[in-house]
């Protein structure tokens, strides 16, 4: 267990930093996604708003869900939440702690996307170009265009190549205005998020430190217990498999000996350990038989007690499963090669 202990200590001490690392990678991935994304405003009156706000709000939602999916503690939370009470009570504070810490980490990448989008300004320019105050920034009095016409002209602001409303309002003026608003919103958003994070982190020691320590301990405990249980089961499975296979080969060797009617055993003294390990399988044909039998008729998942000669029925004889007293060495065994 010493090796496992070292591994667990590594994971425990680094679990937080591992999760923080994933968090940071997702934030970087979100900025990279944004810069790789080819923003293409439709420049049509009703589509601009939908497109702009869609690009602003849909990817963060996806990133938020992805943050939960990539967090390997989500299955632990779900398991702890849904398990029957049994002999161990459930503490809702622990569940809340686990959920909050996961949600906080999952929120970082979406917040980065929204901040980068607002600071860049293209989305807001696209979404709200039809709401630019033409009276103050441009010549509202210039050609008397109908409302619909004005909307269509303003909708082309993000697309400089096809913009034809220079007389109505200069393209650069409108873009600068919208971008200024967008960047102001972006910085305010970042300030708000940072202030919230600061408040959450600094008010906790003032109010619920003892409860926090308790929840943190038990949530780590649940995590470690799950890992240890998996490791113990893996160890058990390994031993199970080892004994099962050993019994399989022993049964095979017993049957071979019985079938060939050799002297039951060569004297082990002159054969040595290696001969014992060969379990009576000493030629190409016999080995192939063993392999075929392993494939066609695996032994049942039922280990016999070690003191008794196994009759694992791998040959499909239909014999009764266990004979606790008599070894079968004298019987001619029938086994099918099929």
């Amino acid at each position: 267990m010493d090796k496992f202990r070292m591994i667990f200590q590594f994971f425990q001490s680094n679990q937080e930093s591992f999760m923080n690392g994933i968090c940071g990678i997702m934030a970087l991935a979100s900025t990279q996604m944004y810069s790789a994304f080819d923003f293409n405003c439709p420049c049509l009156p009703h589509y601009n708003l939908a497109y702009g706000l869609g690009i602003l709000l849909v990817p963060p939602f996806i990133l938020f869900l992805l943050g939960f999916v990539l967090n390997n503690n989500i299955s632990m939370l779900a398991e702890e939440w849904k398990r029957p009470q049994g002999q161990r009570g459930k503490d809702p504070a622990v569940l809340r702690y686990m959920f909050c810490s996961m949600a906080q980490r999952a929120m970082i990448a979406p917040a980065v996307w929204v901040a980068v989008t607002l600071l860049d300004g293209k989305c807001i320019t696209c979404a709200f170009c039809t709401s630019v105050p033409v009276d103050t920034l441009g010549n509202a009095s210039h050609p008397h265009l109908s409302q619909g016409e004005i909307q269509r002209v303003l909708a082309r602001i993000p697309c400089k190549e096809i913009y034809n409303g220079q007389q109505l309002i200069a393209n650069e003026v409108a873009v600068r205005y919208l971008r200024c608003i967008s960047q102001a919103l972006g910085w305010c958003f970042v300030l708000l998020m940072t202030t919230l994070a600061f408040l959450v982190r600094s008010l906790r020691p003032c109010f619920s430190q003892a409860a926090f320590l308790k929840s943190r301990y038990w949530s780590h405990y649940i995590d470690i217990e799950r890992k240890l249980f998996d490791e113990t089961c893996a160890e058990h499975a390994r031993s199970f498999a080892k004994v099962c296979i050993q019994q399989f080969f022993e049964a095979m060797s017993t049957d071979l000996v019985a079938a060939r009617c050799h002297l039951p055993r060569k004297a082990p003294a002159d054969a040595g350990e290696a001969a014992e390990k060969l379990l009576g399988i000493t030629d190409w044909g016999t080995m192939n038989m063993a392999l075929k039998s392993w494939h066609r008729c695996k032994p049942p998942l039922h280990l016999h007690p070690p003191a008794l000669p196994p009759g694992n029925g791998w040959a499909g004889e239909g014999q009764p499963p266990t004979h606790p007293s008599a070894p079968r060495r004298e019987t001619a065994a029938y086994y099918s090669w099929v």
Partner: protein
Amino acid sequence: MDRFRMIFQYFQSSSESVMNGICGLLALASVKMYTSFDFSCPCLPQYNMAYGLGIMFVPPIILFLCGLILNRQSLVMLEEWRRPQGRRKKDLAVIRYMCSSIMQRAMVAPVVWIIVTLLDGKCLICAFSGSMDPEKFVGFANVSTVQVQQLLAKVPCKDDELMRNNTSSKAVARYLRCWSQALGWSILLILIIAAFLACWLRPCFNQATLLQARHWSNYIDIEQKIFEETCCEHSRLFAHKCILHFFESMRQEIKLHSCSLPGEGEGAEGEEDLLWGITDQDQVNKLLKKWYYEKPPLDVS
């Protein structure tokens, strides 16, 4: 205990350096943020000042808060401040020392942002171009008041069609940039002199108190780290025991139900131990089901 000692030495020596490292990274991040940020002055009379000064002062606040959040010691300090006295007195000098060292580190990135902003000059040009006296510049001298405000507000936008070949607007921009850079360098000089004096004059005042405060603030930090490590170690051992009890109870149950031959378990090898008497697919399934439906109580006495 040898392993623990190595871990403690590591924490002792590098707690300060970890915090200094974070401080440096934030300063670099602030420069990178400024260079990648696309400064876009609105060039409108009512908006210029708000935008310019906003870009100069809001990100430093954000960087300051980030510096506080990312610094582990701020939590330690808050806990020490808010804890009930209990059987351990609280030393305000230690808390003050921790607070001041946290604040100093958190101030580095905002100051870097402000200095970089001033040395670059765009923010000040944007904020104060509308406040210039038009009489000083030939191109704006004989223009009506309303129009002059509009024109002055467009000075930061060099590509605007009105400003492209306007020498007076370039003169205004140069003038403001000169002031901005002078201000930036002055602030930098003052801060460096202040830091220099603080380092040199500190040993003259209360050196003993300072050494004590530093020692005990390190102590509180290490104590908390060790407490967390011990809790981790304890929860691992607790879980180990709990699972052993669970498997043992399964083994007892199987022994009771199977009425197996008496001498069976006596010659048990290592494999037998590891199998816990669970040698059957059904028994394994039963164990796994029981683990889910009826976790053992948290009691290993």
